[in-house]
């Protein structure tokens, strides 16, 4: 049997305020904590002790110093050593039993989990739902809700399930309600006994309208403002009716941490929306450019052929009339098809993935960018391979991908001009679309960053170079991206599309 003595904070941190020192720290004196996490006095639960002297600096109380403590290597060490037996807060700190202690630990983990979720794939609704769920569990609340500021003048909007039905709330930002007050003043509101406080005409701005509308009774309520990095209020996160009777300082501290996560989620959603909107604007202007070109083409043919027909009638040239009539007819049909396309065009509608000529799609996208290539003195060419006439693909999606990759290739070309070549070919089981430039090229690190955008699906990064669209389309088509690049020697972006996505 091995017995490993557990170290206390003052031993690990080489502190001069341990037990027996001339100026002992409160953690070194707190005999009531001996044994917690296997430590002497509060040596292994020092983060709960107010006024400790960590690193020679006098710390604040439990709430003040949590941020520092959570990041402290000693805290992490104790947590690692104790595993599931880890105690985050002492029993004497107002928590009733070991079970709720474990719940606390789980909540710390959940905070970290949410943070990780925010960094990876992103879905605002899912993240907010998870945050509210965790906030409710953590504070032992019956209800929890995130309210977001929207509209002009801004009001607090939120949705939640009430007895199996989705309910929407809409609350003004003023002093008539606790949440409105929290948003208006950017202050945490902790209402301990709502009905008594309201009856006593206390400062706590509790409003019974919500209870009346929802046929429930709120006794305690915690409302914490959600702020962006400039400390502007974005919304309010609330918890109502604590099983413990009222919400403690600990609850409040945790809710504030959750509010930070909500703020991050909202900020991320906003960036994402902007990127999507920018993508849509880009596709609208692309459509206009290509539409104008198309119309010029059609008008050119109509003017020419109608002239020939008119003159043919004057001079009795029946063969000319026949030929011109055919041309006229073809272009009138093209025009009719265009009108149909425009009328049925719905940017929200997902594009169907169906068999079609992949080369035609690629060629259309490339032709749209010829003018742009010219103005930049770039030679834009294609080399379209055989065997792709019936390849399953999303026409609009591949069109967007090619446009994005070609525009990126333009940007990679040096100011004096360059060459961009789009090729298609069969590549094993896949169809390959390659966009190659002879521009600046990328170093290993940059290439990895670009690929990382694909691996994580994180569409907020690298949004300046049109990759989010490509990410989206590749997800839909089950395709993948490969990049070959060397500084000074240009880059080749390859889209590989499986035959049956």
């Amino acid at each position, binding site marked *: 049997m091995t017995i490993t003595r557990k170290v206390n904070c003052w031993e690990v941190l080489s502190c001069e305020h341990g037990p027996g020192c001339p100026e002992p720290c409160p953690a070194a004196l707190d005999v009531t904590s001996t044994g917690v996490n296997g430590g002497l006095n509060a040596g292994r639960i020092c983060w709960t002790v107010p006024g400790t002297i960590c690193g020679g600096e006098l710390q604040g109380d439990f709430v003040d110093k949590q941020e520092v403590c959570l990041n402290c290597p000693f805290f992490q060490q104790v947590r690692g050593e104790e595993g599931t037996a880890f105690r985050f807060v002492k029993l004497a700190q107002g928590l009733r039993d070991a079970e709720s202690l474990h719940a606390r630990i789980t909540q710390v983990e959940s905070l970290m989990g949410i943070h990780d979720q925010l960094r990876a794939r992103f879905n605002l609704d899912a993240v907010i739902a998870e945050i509210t769920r965790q906030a409710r569990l953590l504070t032992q609340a019956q209800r929890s809700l995130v309210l977001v500021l929207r509209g002009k003048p801004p009001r607090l909007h939120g949705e939640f399930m009430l007895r199996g039905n989705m309910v929407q709330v809409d609350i003004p930002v003023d002093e008539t309600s606790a949440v409105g007050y929290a948003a208006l003043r950017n202050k945490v509101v902790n209402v301990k006994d709502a009905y008594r406080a309201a009856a006593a005409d206390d400062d706590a701005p509790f409003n019974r309208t919500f209870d009346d509308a929802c046929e429930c009774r709120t006794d305690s309520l915690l409302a914490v403002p959600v702020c962006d990095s400039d400390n502007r209020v974005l919304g309010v996160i609330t918890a109502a009716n604590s099983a413990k009777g009222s919400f403690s300082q600990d609850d409040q501290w945790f809710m504030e941490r959750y509010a930070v996560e909500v703020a991050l989620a909202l900020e991320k959603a906003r960036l994402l929306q902007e990127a999507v909107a920018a993508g849509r604007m880009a596709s609208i202007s692309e459509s206009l450019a290509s539409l104008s*070109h198309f119309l*010029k*083409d059609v*008008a*050119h*043919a*109509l*003017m*020419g*052929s109608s*002239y*020939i027909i008119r*003159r043919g009638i004057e*001079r009795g*040239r029946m063969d*000319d009339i026949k*030929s*011109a009539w055919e*041309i006229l007819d*073809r*272009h009138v049909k093209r025009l009719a098809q265009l009108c149909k396309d425009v009328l049925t065009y719905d940017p929200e509608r997902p594009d169907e993935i169906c068999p079609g000529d992949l080369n035609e799609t690629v060629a259309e996208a490339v*032709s749209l960018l*010829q*003018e742009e290539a*010219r*103005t930049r*003195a770039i030679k834009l*060419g*294609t080399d379209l391979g055989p065997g792709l006439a019936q390849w399953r693909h999303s026409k609009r999606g591949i069109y967007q991908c090619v446009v994005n990759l070609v525009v990126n290739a333009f940007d990679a070309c040096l100011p*004096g*001009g360059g060459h961009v070549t789009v090729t298609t070919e069969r590549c094993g089981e896949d169809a390959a679309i390659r966009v190659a430039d002879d521009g600046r090229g990328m170093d290993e690190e940059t290439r990895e960053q670009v690929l990382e955008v694909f691996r994580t699906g994180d569409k907020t990064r690298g949004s300046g170079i049109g990759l989010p669209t490509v990410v989206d389309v590749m997800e839909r088509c089950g395709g993948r991206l490969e990049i070959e690049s060397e500084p000074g020697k240009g880059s080749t972006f390859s889209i590989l599309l499986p035959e049956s996505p």
Partner: protein
Amino acid sequence: MGEPRKKVLVVDDDRDDLKMISMILEPEGYEIITAENGAEALEKVESEAPDLILLDVMMPELDGFAACAKLKASPHSKGIPVVLLTGVAKQITKTRYPIDGVLRAEAEEYLEKPVDPEELLKVVAGYLK
């Protein structure tokens, strides 16, 4: 016999356009030669010695601008007037297309699409008086 018919080389990758322009010009007494891309056009200039060249700008391979620049760079063909048919506005075409870093699309005339057939005939007649 009157004087020999003037030869016009029409260059366009779109066969409808090619046919149409030929049909507009032919009845007015011009001899029409056609080419479907810039490279073919250069060959036809060599073999047919046209009096005027109508060049579409948007073509694969060697486009109208590049073909024009080559024609104007060769002592053999630089005297042949070139009319560029373009989908982009004249001022853009004139000022923003550099070849080898130099602005060199020195066509005699630019006609913007859609081209009015009457105007086309007037321009062609102007060079082939």
